[in-house]
Each structure stands twice: as structure tokens, then as C-alpha cells.
């Protein structure tokens, strides 16, 4: 019995105007997100991969309504939150949270951990005497010792800071957590710890994740389903196992093949190499946005934009049926 998805995004667009000249005339748009649709069922994890600059972070911010989308719909528990004004969002605010990439800017360096965690609790209206207990509980959840309450972010390691970021997101008791490159800045061994923590928390609190990353290994580990983004559009979407074992879109295949395989016997002969640089989102190529770098591009690819086709395993490419499998 298919449950209605917790999050359903339909044809979301986020364009940034480019202004030039003395009077700040708009001369074009940066199409950061150009018609993205996706769905995440409750309790599942959707991975989102792509190169830097493909719009995945913007997509995350748009869904969380940190940025206001240009057009499209975002159905959260059935209600469209894409373009409604800020005051109508107050009920939603605690339901969708984000975990950011660990950097200098994720935690206020002037607040100690207890202060960082008490901020969301106070915003949610938790009573003063309760706050202390809840902070303890949150720190336990993410595996940080109590004595760290008085520490400042600068005194913590990368992994520890990321745990606090997760605790902060958890504090609001959200239903959906958007993770924006949560492990990209960490050592591989610490990445594993954090990923495991995320999975544990998902089980315990029945959380839903949108996991945005450019590292394929981490995405593969946590995601139930994976979508691949290129220049603001989705080019392929499938169950994790399907995507990694039978990638169809040339871009996906190139991404996966660029990933080094330690076992020498499993290395493919026909490696696909991606040439060129990712085009600017202010001036995307006509037709299929990937055709400038695609080794299989044909005339049709230069003039017409392929739509996302397929149910379980969807691809946006004219050539894919010819390259085998659907």
C-alpha cells in the first residue's frame, strides 16, 4: 500500500537574476535549479549527487525554504510550501531541518555547545528546566560526552563538530533532515562514524533524509534511492543498487567509472572519460545540457531536451534505450 510521500517536489525552479550596468538591468538568469522533480517516502533516504555547481545545494536550500523557489511545487505532507509567504511557514519550520558541511560557518564560534543546542530548544518553546535534560539527551544521541557542554566549536574536532550540527538539527524533532555535504570535509574513518550515526538516528527516530553529496561512497552507503543532477536538472534516478550496478546516463557512468576500484580484476576496459568543464549555469547548452561533454551526442541531443523517462529507474537521455537496458 503506497504511502503518500513525505516530500514531493514537482518541477522546481530557482533562477538567480544577473544584473549589469549602472541601473542594474537584468540581462539573464543563472538557472541553478531548472525543473527538478523528486519524491522521498517517509523514513527513507534519497541521495543526491552531482559535481560542484550543479545546483544540489540550491535545491536543498529551496526545499528547506531558506531560499524562495522561482516556481514549482514542494509538497510536504501534502501541503505546498514552495511559494507561500514566510509567515505561513512557521508551522513547518520545525519539521524540516538541515545539517551543513562542517566548516567554520556551521557553528557560531562565539557560543559554546550548550548555548548552540539550547537555541533550537528555546525556539521550540521548551521550558527552561527541561532544556538541561534535553541537551543531555541530544548529546547522548550523537555520542558526545556531557563534559563537552562548555566547550566551544574551535575546541572540537571535525567529527565532533558535525555531531553537534546533527544534534542541533535533531533538537527540533524534525521529520525531514536535509544533509548538505555532511561528511565531505571529514577524514574517511570519521565519515564512516558519522554516516553510521545518521543511519542509527534514522532508525530510532523514523527520520527521512535528503542526502546531498558529491562523494559516491557515502551516498551509496546511506541512500535507498539516488538521483544524479547535472546543471540544474536530474539526469538519472534509481534505487541505489540499480544505479551503481547498471548506470544508464553517460554522465552517471562517467562519474562512477572515475571512482577508483581497488580490485584489479574488476576494472573495466572501456573507461569513459569526461572531457571539458561543466558549462556555466548562466548559459547552459541548448538541447540536452550534457551534450557538450557526451561521447555519444548526436544531432538530436543538441537541439532537443530529453525528459526524465522511466518508473523505477528513470533516465533523461535519448540514447539510453540504444545503449542497452531501461
Amino acid at each position, binding site marked *: 500500500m503506497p504511502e503518500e510521500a513525505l516530500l514531493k517536489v514537482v518541477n522546481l525552479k530557482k533562477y538567480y537574476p544577473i544584473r549589469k550596468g549602472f541601473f542594474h538591468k537584468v540581462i539573464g538568469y543563472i538557472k541553478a535549479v531548472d525543473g527538478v522533480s523528486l519524491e522521498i517516502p517517509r523514513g527513507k533516504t534519497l541521495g543526491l549527487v552531482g559535481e560542484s555547481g550543479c545546483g544540489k545545494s540550491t535545491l536543498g*536550500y529551496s526545499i*528547506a525554504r*531558506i531560499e524562495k523557489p522561482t516556481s514549482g511545487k514542494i509538497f510536504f505532507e501534502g501541503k505546498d510550501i514552495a511559494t507561500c509567504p514566510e509567515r505561513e*511557514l*512557521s508551522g513547518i*519550520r*520545525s519539521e*524540516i*531541518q*538541515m545539517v*551543513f*558541511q562542517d*566548516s567554520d*560557518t*556551521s*557553528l*557560531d*564560534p*562565539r*557560543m*559554546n555547545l*550548550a*548555548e*548552540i*543546542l*539550547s*537555541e*533550537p530548544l528555546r*525556539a*521550540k518553546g521548551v521550558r*527552561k528546566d527541561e*532544556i*538541561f535534560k534535553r*541537551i543531555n539527551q541530544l548529546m*547522548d*544521541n550523537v*555520542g*558526545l*560526552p*556531557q563534559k563537552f*557542554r*562548555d566547550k*566551544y566549536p*574551535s*575546541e*572540537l*574536532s*571535525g*567529527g565532533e563538530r558535525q555531531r553537534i*550540527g546533527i544534534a*542541533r*538539527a535533531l533538537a*527540533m524533532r524534525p521529520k525531514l533532515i536535509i544533509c548538505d555535504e555532511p561528511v565531505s570535509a571529514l*577524514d574517511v574513518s*570519521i565519515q564512516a*562514524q558519522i554516516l*553510521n*550515526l545518521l543511519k*542509527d538516528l534514522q532508525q530510532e527516530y523514523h527520520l527521512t533524509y535528503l542526502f546531498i553529496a558529491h562523494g559516491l561512497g557515502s551516498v551509496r552507503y546511506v541512500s535507498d534511492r539516488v538521483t544524479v543532477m547535472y546543471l540544474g536538472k536530474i539526469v538519472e534516478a534509481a534505487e541505489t543498487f540499480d544505479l551503481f550496478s547498471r548506470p544508464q546516463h553517460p554522465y552517471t557512468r562517467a562519474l562512477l567509472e572515475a571512482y577508483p576500484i581497488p580490485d584489479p580484476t574488476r576494472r573495466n576496459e572501456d573507461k569513459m572519460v569526461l572531457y571539458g568543464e561543466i558549462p556555466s549555469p548562466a548559459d547552459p547548452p541548448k538541447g540536452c545540457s550534457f551534450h557538450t561533454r557526451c561521447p555519444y551526442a548526436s544531432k538530436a541531443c543538441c537541439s532537443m531536451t530529453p525528459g526524465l523517462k522511466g518508473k523505477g529507474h528513470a533516465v533523461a537521455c535519448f540514447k539510453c534505450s540504444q545503449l542497452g537496458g531501461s
Partner: protein
Amino acid sequence: MKTMNVALSDGERVNHGTPQGRCRRLFYEFFSNKLACAGTAIILVLALIAIFAPKIAPQDPYKLTDSYDAGPSAQHFLGTDSLGRDIFSRLIYASRISLIVGIGTMLISTFLGTLLGLLSGFLGGKVDMVIMRTADVFMTFPPMIILLVLVGIIGPGLWKIIFVLGILGWTSLARVVRGCVLSVKEKNYIKASRLMGISTARIVTSHVLPNVAGPVFLSATSMTVYGILSEASLSFLGLGVQPPVASWGNMLTEAQSLTVLTSMPWVWVPPSVLILICVFSFNSIGDGLRDALAGERTSSTTTD
């Protein structure tokens, strides 16, 4: 990866995660700086002297006597000036002037600077441009000259001086505050706070102001210093606080004559020393503040 629940011992400080904890820590750091402590103490003493001047001063600072330019004596501890007024008493009353000017200038310029800097940083666009261009204009006028021009137009006097000094001093603080706001605006923790549904006003008070507080307090001390030194210079030239009101600056005007300079050191040395002590103390407080705030930012070597 989960740690066991550790029961807290009674000795642990219960921290509800309020900003007060941070203030406590800053106080601690500030007062461990010896010069800053000394400075604070001196200013407090000066403030007491200023407040209780009528009780402390032995004579009426305005009273003219017949003994002009007399040396120190039992009756007049530091002698008398050219009009026969008791220098010691005038010295004590003059402390009021310097402190009032310093604090007045500081309050006006800090208020203006912080407000305009916040507006400029947050609202951006046209507002930002107008405010910053105005600051440019203010900064292009050479400091003393514009001061003299304004005093020339509106006339000397204690409150006029404070007003002029205040409205000339806001530019550097506004710039700094604006820079702070701009750098904080885009940080991820601000985005996280927005996600919690916290209003912009609360974000400003809990995230932006603490980051801005450092430069603001620092600027407050330098504005106080600027006010006191400027008033001293203006009064010295006869264009600031006018006699018979006593100000350390105008008590030094007489020293321009070589006779006074060479043979009557009791006239000009005490006011000079007091100005030095007063300004030095405010500067030490500023240094202590700056060191205490800088200590927060230094990160210990991180371990992974």
C-alpha cells in the same frame, strides 16, 4: 558510538546554555589582565572624585582671590592661577568635564555607528550606499579642521563640543559593524537559525551583536579617548570649555607663556599628568577588552 549516560556530580556547574556564561568568562579574562584592572580602578576613582567633587575640593574653584600665581601652600595645595583661583580645587572639578565629554562622545558616536552599521549591513542596496557615501564624506574632512569649523560656527561650550565630537566620530565604527554584519549574514549557522523559525530581530541579538560587540566596545574606548583628547586640545586653544569652568585643557592654556612654563610648574604639570592618567586608563581598558575578545577566537590545535 553512543556513550553511556553519565550522571552529573554535584560539583559540576549547571549550564543552561545562556549567553550569561560567556559574559562571565569574558569578565574573568579581562580582569586577569593587570593593566586593564589598574585602568578600571583608576577610572572608578576618577569617577568618584568627579561625583563627590564638592565634598573633596577644599576651595571653591571659581572664587577669585588676591594672591595671583602663588606657589603651593597649606591653603592652596597646588597654588593659584593668574586670577587667584585655587588650582587643586579646579583640578578636581575638571575631572567632571573630561569624564562627561569622554562618555558623552562615546555614547553618541557608538549609538550612531552601531545603528548605521547594522542598517547598512542588513538592508544593503541603496541604504547601504547612502550611509557609506555619507561616511566617506565625513572622513574626507581633515579631523581637526572640521572640528574647528563647526566650533567656529556654533560656538564653544561643553554640550556643543560633545555634540560635535559625537557626530564626527561614528564613521569608523559604522564601517566595522557593517563589515561584521556582512561576513556573518551568509554563514551557515545563521541559515540554521532561520530554519528554527527564529525572527530576524532575535538572530541579530543572539548571533550578530555578540560578534559585533567586540569592535563596538573597543570603539567605545577609543571614542572616549578621542573625546577627552579633543576636548583637551580645544580647551587648550581656548575654543572648548571656557573659563571660569575648569577643564584640564584650559588650565594648560596659561602654560603657553614662557614664564609660567619655566617658573610655575605647579600650574601645568598636574593637569598634564591627570590627562595622561585618565586617557592611559581608558586605553588600557580598551587593550584588555581586545585581548579578552581575541582570546575567544584562537583555536587550540584540533585533534581528529
